[in-house]
């Protein structure tokens, strides 16, 4: 079989006869549109009021269309040169697009904060959609890379050049083209709806998820509860999808999902209560700002109970996001693919998007509630001068001390932890999942809740005991972080020895 190379991809799809005609048409149309736009623009300078705006808008549209036509003409005429250029510029262009989406979504909100709320909301929705799509594509690629590295292989390497960075995009394009199969005997309406019922809550929770004190779609006083509520809503889609598939395996997956998520919502809720009690509010921005003073003020390190609550919260989110070792609803060795067995193409992609969006939301929520939200480990007081300085200082403050980048980084770190666990641990059995919930998680979270209550009642904030335990927990956390970092560095440094030279020598190209 002949190998499909980049050259094949670059070959022009236009036949020799059709090409000149296409070029003629495209360039002609382009010139006409651009000229029209210029004429309209000139006309617009003479107009006032509403008609001025309309003329200007039409002129812009015409200009864009004309530009596209001219671009198309260039592409058709010189497909190879353009293709090579695009190939070389692929990554920068992609990153530029990412940046553009973020800027377009958020800049107006930051520039004109007092504009009507509805504008802000619309922009927040656009931002959420953009972020979720981008993050999902990134995380799917990244999960495959991490999985590959954990399993001593390379993961995606082909698509897009550098480490197969465009793999998710290619996969997405493939999925869009796939046939949308409806299982025979299934409930078509429910089957179709289920994917959206799962996706929409996962997406809309990003409206209330603060990326920093200022970067939040709607800063609700019940933000935390809303996010948890939307977290739980996705289950219904899974349940309906599993039922509508008319497949016993899907049904099993759906039942398991419902069982598991409902059960783990209780320890999840109990763990949530700890930061709520400490902060005394459900407003996520307030909880986040509480942890501004360096990493020893992070809620997880405040006292032993918050530390345990952070751990139980992590475990409960694993179960809620149905990630390993709690991935029973889609356990491939038992249920084929669980509730997703009958899904394909776009709808399947929606389920995946929802899953990765929930993963990030869970990670970000962990960071906000327990691990310093959008603050760097450095105390905010050090950077207080920069926060109000000139623009470059503010930018630097955002990068070094606190800002959305930190929250995204932390969220991605917790997503990484989820990926890491998934490719390391075996899967738990259903009765063990329930057992772990009812006989371990529930008592532990209850005791922690009670203990935290007494702690807050009996131990004053500045007392010796509070400070000492705060310090101890901080040191413990720092040691764990150091341990993880050193293991990672060791693994990177001595990977040849760890894998064994036999295998490394054996790899193609060695």
């Amino acid at each position: 079989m002949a190998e499909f190379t980049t050259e094949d991809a670059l070959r022009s799809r236009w036949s020799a006869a059709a090409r000149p005609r296409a070029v003629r048409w495209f360039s002609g149309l382009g010139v006409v549109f651009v000229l029209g736009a210029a004429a309209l623009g000139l006309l617009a300078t003479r107009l006032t009021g509403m008609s001025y705006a309309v003329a200007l808008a039409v002129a812009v549209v015409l200009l864009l269309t004309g530009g596209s036509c001219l671009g198309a003409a260039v592409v058709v005429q010189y497909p190879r040169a353009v293709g090579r250029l695009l190939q070389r510029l692929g990554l920068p262009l992609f990153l530029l697009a990412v940046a553009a989406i973020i800027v377009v979504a958020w800049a107006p909100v930051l520039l004109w904060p007092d504009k009507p709320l509805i504008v802000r909301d619309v922009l927040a929705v656009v931002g959420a959609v953009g972020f979720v799509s981008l993050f999902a594509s990134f995380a799917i690629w990244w999960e495959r890379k991490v999985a590959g590295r954990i399993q001593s292989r390379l993961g995606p390497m082909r698509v897009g050049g550098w480490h197969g960075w465009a793999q998710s995009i290619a996969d997405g394009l493939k999925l869009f083209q796939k046939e949308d199969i409806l299982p025979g005997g299934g409930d078509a309406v429910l089957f179709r709806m289920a994917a959206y019922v799962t996706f929409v809550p996962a997406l809309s929770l990003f409206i209330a998820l603060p990326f920093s004190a200022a970067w939040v779609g709607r800063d609700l006083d019940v933000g935390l509860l809303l996010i948890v509520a939307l977290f739980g809503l996705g289950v219904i889609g899974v349940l309906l999808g599993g039922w509508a598939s008319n497949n016993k395996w899907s049904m099993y997956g759906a039942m398991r999902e419902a069982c598991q998520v409902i059960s783990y919502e209780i320890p999840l809720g109990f763990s949530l209560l700890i930061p709520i009690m400490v902060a005394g509010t459900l407003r996520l921005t307030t909880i986040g700002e509480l942890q501004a003073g360096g990493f020893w003020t992070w809620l997880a390190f405040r006292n032993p109970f918050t530390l345990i609550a952070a751990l139980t919260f992590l475990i409960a989110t694993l179960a809620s996001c149905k990630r390993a070792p709690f991935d029973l609803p889609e356990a491939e060795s038992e249920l084929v693919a669980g509730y997703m067995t009958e899904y394909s193409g776009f709808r399947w992609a929606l389920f995946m998007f929802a899953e990765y969006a929930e993963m990030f939301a869970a990670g970000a929520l962990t960071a906000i509630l327990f691990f310093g939200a959008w603050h760097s480990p450095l105390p905010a007081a050090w950077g207080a001068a920069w926060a109000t300085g000139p623009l470059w200082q503010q930018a630097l403050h955002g990068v070094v001390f606190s800002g959305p980048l930190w929250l995204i980084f932390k969220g991605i770190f917790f997503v990484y932890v989820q990926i890491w666990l998934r490719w390391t641990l075996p899967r738990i059995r259903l009765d063990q999942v329930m057992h772990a919930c009812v006989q371990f998680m529930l008592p532990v979270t209850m005791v922690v809740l009670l203990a935290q209550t007494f702690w807050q009642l009996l131990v004053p904030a500045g007392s010796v005991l509070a400070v000492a335990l705060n310090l101890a927990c901080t040191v413990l956390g720092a040691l764990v972080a150091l341990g993880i970092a050193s293991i990672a560095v060791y693994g990177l440094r001595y990977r040849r020895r760890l894998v064994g030279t036999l295998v490394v020598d054996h790899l193609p190209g060695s």
Partner: protein
Amino acid sequence: MPDAPLTNSPDSLADVERVVPGELRTEEMLLNMGPQHPSTHGVLRLVLRTDGELVLEAVPHIGYLHRCAEKIGESVASFQFIPITDRLDYLAAMINNQGFSLAVEKLAGLEVPERARYIRVIMAELNRIASHLVSFGTYGLDMGAFTPFLYGFREREYILDLFEAACGARLTYSFITPGGVTQDLPDGFLDNLARFLDYFEPKIDEYNDLLSFNYIFIKRTAGVGVISPEDAIAYGLTGPCLRGSGVKWDLRRCMPYELYDRFDFEIPVGVAGGTDRIPREVVAGDSWSRYFVRMQEMKQSVRILRQCVQQLPAGEFRNKPKGILKLPPKEVYLEVEGARGQLGFLVVGDGKAVPRRVKIRGPSFCNLAITKHVCRQVLLADIAAILGSIDVVMGEVDR
């Protein structure tokens, strides 16, 4: 027999088939696992009668891969049947070759040079390791741990390279033939083998740390699908499944064939937990024991291989029969210790080159028979655990 009614399998099998949904008790449901399912190794079909997650009964249905191997054996000369034996237990094809060759040699009274015997042992043990590596990997996969699978295959790849160097094939070798092996070992084979053994032996401990002693893995497999020694013997289990139940029976030691009486090795068996490094939860005869016997057997195979490397004599690599090998009118039944259990060949000659009768005792086929007995009142996830620990290869079950 502890539960006699179960042996009336035709009856109850028909029962399961006959049940229509309306007659089921309200909570029960019939579920088809396979023939295409990620956790059935190959085209095995299990009909599960379930009550929610609880499996009340599992009935294996086989035959999706039937290729009339025995009939083919009765219509071709014994040398020509070797490639067909490759396709029985395709994960341990060398041992299949060896078993059939031994039976034919015994029937025809063919002498085999000593070097050839050593080469055969090397190949058989290497293939045992390769097969157990697949078993280890796919068992991890059944338990939801994806990574061990790729580690197992990474190591297996090197063994396949050694095989490829020796005979040019990576899966269906047809390397061991009546009278010896088809070719002598290539230059540098022994060095590479020694390098591999040095590399591989510590890896086994690594895999034990990664999977065998993983808390979740133990929880999933220990105490699941327990087969008592009596049941194991009564159902005719062999290989790691039998030894997992604590029965110290290995043909290589108990009825030595080839050169196995010359080597120093142990027979690992399943023991109750609490001693040594064996986890507390383990019961002799459970899935974990069966699995762990394989891990220990790989170590023993490494031991045998090291001795082979040291002892391998120079000499002929085969005793080529003059002309066509005629099979005398006798009957020979011979078993070898395959990767999955005792692989038996019955060969009946009638003075021609083509045997009059070939019958194969597939270990997986016999081991599979206990599925119905073990998979009762277990959870759905345990089916994967039990089936994976029995480790069947459908090529051999269906033949």
